[in-house]
């Protein structure tokens, strides 16, 4: 059974460093056996209500705060890149790495269900890249990121990109400890995406509208898309870019540098 959407086999996840053959397979660790912790004892019959009053995602949120504390202490800007599949996150990262790696260290954690393709694609630019394979799971969580961090040996004052699994639903709820969540949508997706996937648009701080080079060929209303996104997140920032032609990327680099200098 999938950890997330109920399909397929129970998911273990796998962390691989690009350029290395070792892999680290992990399952979800639970802090206890899922069985009766005590034998039934009839000597104290009766029903009682135990107050819990906890956030269901508390464990993930606590681990995310640990990650965040680590990033803060080392002056690392961590960006969680989210989008639907095929919106151009990896192409955007390629250009970003190429332009910025001369200024400071850049690292990537790649999340995909299967395969090393993206980490290998980015490792070609000479940066450390780790791939997390979520198996049947469809989002990264703070535990996976924490584990991946241990194999990256991050320098102070660096830039870490986490490319989440392409999915506009599940990753929205899982804080990874990032400083900023950046959502990439493309003009081929339609301007109604923010209304269809409001949680993701609500949880992001920056929305990059990619593939603007295709605007003459698709029926995409830029202003309507932004208006829809502002309905769910009135403080969302926007950048219009084409990762392919590199149009608008200078503003993205400026945005990153501003945030890196303000840590």
């Amino acid at each position: 059974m999938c950890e997330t959407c109920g399909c397929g086999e129970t998911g273990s996840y796998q962390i691989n460093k690009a350029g290395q053959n070792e892999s680290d397979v992990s399952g979800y660790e639970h802090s206890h056996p899922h069985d009766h912790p005590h034998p039934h004892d009839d000597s104290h019959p009766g029903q009682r209500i135990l107050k819990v009053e906890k956030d269901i995602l508390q464990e993930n949120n606590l681990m995310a705060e640990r990650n965040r504390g680590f990033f803060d202490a080392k002056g690392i800007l961590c960006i969680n890149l989210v989008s639907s599949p095929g919106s151009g996150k990896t192409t955007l990262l390629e250009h970003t790495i190429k332009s910025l790696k001369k200024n400071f260290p850049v690292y990537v954690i790649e999340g995909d269900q299967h395969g090393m393709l993206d980490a290998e694609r980015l490792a070609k630019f000479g940066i450390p890249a780790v791939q997390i394979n979520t198996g049947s799971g469809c989002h990264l969580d703070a535990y996976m990121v924490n584990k991946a961090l241990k194999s990256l040996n991050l320098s102070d004052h660096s830039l870490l990109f986490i490319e989440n699994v392409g999915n506009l639903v599940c990753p929205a709820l899982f804080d990874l400890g990032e400083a900023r969540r950046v959502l990439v949508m493309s003009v081929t997706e339609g301007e109604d995406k923010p209304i269809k996937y409001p949680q993701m648009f609500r949880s992001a701080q920056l929305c990059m509208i990619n593939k603007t080079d295709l605007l003459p060929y698709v029926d995409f209303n830029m202003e309507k898309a932004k208006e829809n996104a502002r309905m769910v997140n009135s403080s969302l920032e926007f950048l219009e870019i084409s990762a392919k032609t590199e149009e608008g990327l200078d503003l993205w680099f400026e945005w990153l540098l501003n945030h890196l200098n303000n840590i």
Partner: protein
Amino acid sequence: MHELSLAMSILDVAAKEIEKYNTVRVQEIQLEVGALSGVDAEALEFALSFAVKNSFLEGASVKIIHTEGLGLCSRCNDSFIMAEVWTPCPSCNLPAWKILKGEELRFLSLTVND
């Protein structure tokens, strides 16, 4: 879609609570799911029915308290009921600048038999 992950988290939270008490049988768990939490309560119940199999929660009933969404209008600042995250203020037709209620995703309590 992410409801099975949440079901596993619910199991973890419950197990930690149970460890604190000399408790054996869980009759019911009570959860709070806000209308704007991004979680489908029915899907969560369905996921829980799988997640609890062969666990100490097997056989326990699940009670979900639904919390209505409530936001403050970005113009008139009056509170209004939000069915969805994008529901606008009925008077001004503008989005909320702040959500007051409805994003809850909480484990409220356990009813147990000693």
